[in-house]
C-alpha cells in the first residue's frame, strides 16, 4: 500500500487544504458554490469519521468484551438495534427502550457531579472571597457577593416568589447589569483568541502554501 508521506501527496494535500481554506473564506463575501462544496465535504467527512469511530467502538467496547467473557455486553446490541424499529411501524414503540436507556444514563451523569462543581463550589468560593482587610478588598467583596446573589435572583419566574415588589424589580435590574458586564468582558476578551485563529489561517495561506518570505 502507498504511504501518504511521499512528497507528491504532501504537496497535493497542501493544495487541497488551501482550496478549502479559500472556499470557506469566500463565505465572507457571500454564500456561494465554493462554500456549498466545502460544506458538503465537511458533512460527508464528519459523517464518515463518526461512523468509523462508531464501528471502532462496537469492536473495541462491544465485541472485545464479549470475546473476553463479559457476556453482559450482548444486551447492548438489542438496545442499539431497537432504534431501527421505526422502519416497522407496527413495532416502532420498541425504539423507546433505546431512547430511555440513553436519556436515563445521559441525564443522571450530566447533573450528578455538576451539582457540586457548578453550585456548591462556586458558593464556597464566593463566601471565601469575602475579605475586609483593606478598602479595595471590601469593595471587591461587596461586588462579588452582591452580583452573585442579584444575578441569581434575576432568574425568578413565578409571580408568587418574585412577589413583584419594587425591591425585587430593582434587584433584578442590578442582576441584569451584572450579566451585561460579563457579556461585555467576554466579547472584549474573545477578540484576541479569535483573531489568533484568523492569523493562523492567514499564515498557512501566506507562508505554507504561497511560501512568501517575511520581509
Amino acid at each position, binding site marked *: 500500500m502507498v504511504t501518504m508521506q511521499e512528497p507528491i501527496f504532501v504537496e497535493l494535500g497542501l493544495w487541497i*487544504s488551501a482550496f478549502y481554506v479559500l472556499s470557506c473564506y469566500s463565505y465572507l463575501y457571500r454564500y456561494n458554490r465554493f462554500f456549498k462544496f466545502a460544506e458538503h465535504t465537511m458533512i460527508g467527512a464528519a459523517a464518515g469519521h463518526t461512523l468509523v469511530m462508531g464501528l471502532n467502538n462496537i469492536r473495541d467496547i462491544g465485541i472485545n468484551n464479549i470475546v473476553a467473557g463479559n457476556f453482559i455486553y450482548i444486551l447492548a446490541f438489542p438496545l442499539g438495534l431497537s432504534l431501527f424499529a421505526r422502519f416497522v411501524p407496527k413495532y416502532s414503540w420498541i425504539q423507546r427502550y433505546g431512547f430511555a436507556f440513553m436519556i436515563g444514563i*445521559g441525564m443522571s451523569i450530566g447533573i450528578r457531579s455538576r451539582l457540586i462543581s457548578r453550585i456548591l463550589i462556586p458558593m464556597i468560593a464566593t463566601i471565601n472571597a469575602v475579605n475586609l482587610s483593606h478598602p479595595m478588598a471590601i469593595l471587591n467583596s461587596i461586588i462579588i457577593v452582591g452580583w452573585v446573589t442579584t444575578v441569581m435572583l434575576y432568574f425568578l419566574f413565578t409571580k408568587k416568589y418574585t412577589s413583584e415588589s419594587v425591591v425585587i424589580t430593582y434587584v433584578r435590574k442590578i442582576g441584569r447589569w*451584572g450579566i451585561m458586564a460579563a457579556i461585555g468582558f467576554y466579547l472584549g476578551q474573545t477578540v484576541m483568541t479569535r483573531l489568533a*485563529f484568523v492569523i493562523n489561517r492567514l499564515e498557512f495561506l501566506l507562508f505554507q502554501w504561497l511560501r512568501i518570505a517575511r520581509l
Partner: protein
Amino acid sequence: MLMLGLGILMFIEFYVDVPDSFLDVTKSLQNFVMIISAFAMALGGITLLGHHGKSVMDKKPGQWFYSLWLLVVMFGFILVGVSAGTSGTQYTWLFNQFFRPIDMTIYSLIGWLVVYAIYFTFRARNPETTFLIIIALFTLAGNAPIGSAIWPPIAGIKSWLGTVPNTAALRGFTMASMLGSIVISLRTLAGMERAALGG
C-alpha cells in the same frame, strides 16, 4: 421507569461508597451508551444516504452534484477507515486534507464575523448597552499589547474586570442555570417530560 432506575443507579454510584463489583456494572452500562450511539450513527448514515441519494437519483438541479460528492466523501472515509485503520497514514492524510482545514477555517470565520458583529451591534442605545460597550472597550484595550504600552494601568483594570465583576456575574449565572438543569433532568427521569420519548 427504566430511566428512573438507571438514573438512581448512577446517583448511587456517585454519592455512595459502593463496592467495586457495583462499579463494574455501572461502567458497563455507560459503555452500552457508546454502543447504542454507534447504532444511532448508522441510522444517521442511512438518513443522509436517503436524503442525498434521492437528490442524486432525481438529478435535483443545483444540488445533485453536491449530494453525490457528500456521499463519495462519506464512503471514502468509511472505506479507508475500515480497510487501513484509523491510525494509518492513509486515513490521517484523508482526515488532514478533507476534515481539518474546513473544520479549522469555519471555526476561524468567527474572527471575521465577531469584528462585524461588534461593529453593527455596539451602539449605545440605552444605559445597559453603554455599560456593556465601556467594559468591552476596557477589555479590548487591556488585551492588546499596544494598549498597555500606551497606558500601563489598563492591564490591571482589565484583570480586575475579569476577576471581580465577571467572576461574580458568571457564578450567579452558572448556579441559576445549573439549578434549572437539575430540575428539568429530574423531571425527565421521573417520566414527566413527554418530549423525551416522543410519545
